[in-house]
């Protein structure tokens, strides 16, 4: 039961880490569960799972970019709606004062349209910001991957005479 749970925790790790180390970690679980304690190993597996996804895989950056984009779209849309609402309230107040209901209601349609246009433009700006954020992240990610693929002798060794 606990072994299956640990196996499942390992299966939830990012694929690259899982392929490289999962079999070995399971072997350690088999060897050390009596001496180290099953609960400690399960907790360690859980912490490892969070660390690999949140800190090592970079998935949190995508999640943050999407959440930021959604927040911007929502905030932009709500802001535009509030602006439109304030304008409509002012219009209704003016209509009540001069009593020309019919004429003023006919001109209410352009106000609703302008609110929609504001909402759409707010959303477009939010999406554009999200796309820019994602593009920057992809650029950073690609550069890091290219650096990782460089030959061994060029990696991890720096010298004082090397050009920066």
């Amino acid at each position: 039961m606990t072994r299956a749970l640990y196996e499942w925790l390992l299966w939830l790790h990012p694929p690259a880490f899982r392929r490289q180390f999962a079999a070995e970690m399971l072997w350690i679980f088999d060897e050390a569960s009596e001496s180290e304690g099953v609960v400690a190993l399960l907790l360690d597996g859980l912490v490892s799972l969070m660390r690999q996804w949140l800190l090592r895989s970079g998935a949190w950056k995508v999640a943050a970019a999407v959440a930021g984009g959604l927040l911007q779209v929502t905030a932009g849309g709500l802001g535009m709606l509030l602006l439109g609402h304030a304008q409509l309230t002012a219009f209704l107040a003016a209509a009540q004062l001069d009593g020309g209901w019919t004429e003023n209601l006919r001109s209410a349609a352009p106000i609703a349209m302008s609110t929609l246009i504001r909402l759409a433009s707010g959303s477009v700006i939010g999406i554009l910001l999200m796309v820019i954020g994602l593009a920057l992240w992809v650029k950073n990610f690609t550069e890091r991957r290219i650096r990782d693929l460089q030959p061994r002798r060029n990696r991890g060794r720096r010298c004082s005479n090397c050009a920066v």
Partner: protein
Amino acid sequence: MIEDLSPFIPLSPAILHILLSLAGSDRHGYGIMQEVARQSEGQYKLGPGTLYDNLQKLMNQRLVDEAPRRSGSEDPRRRYYRLTSFGRRVLSAEVARLEGVVREAKLRLHLPNPRRAT
């Protein structure tokens, strides 16, 4: 050409213990865990998650490499790791740094030098 090891130093406690455990001989993951516990007299324990997270980092930095398997009769899941010559230089630089820290601490705290075991 003088090697600049400063980007790797100071080492985290987990990495220092892993490199130290591999300084004597090649070990598999569980062997590293046991050796770290032995070296620290049980005060520092590494779980498999922490161990392999750090091993991955160390292999990417070429401080540690995978060693060939010892015999075919062993569990195929068991893999051995070894310290590279570059890893050994980084570990030596860290030990030298720590010696400086200990020397400074003894001066400031007026601690006597430990007696040599006979």
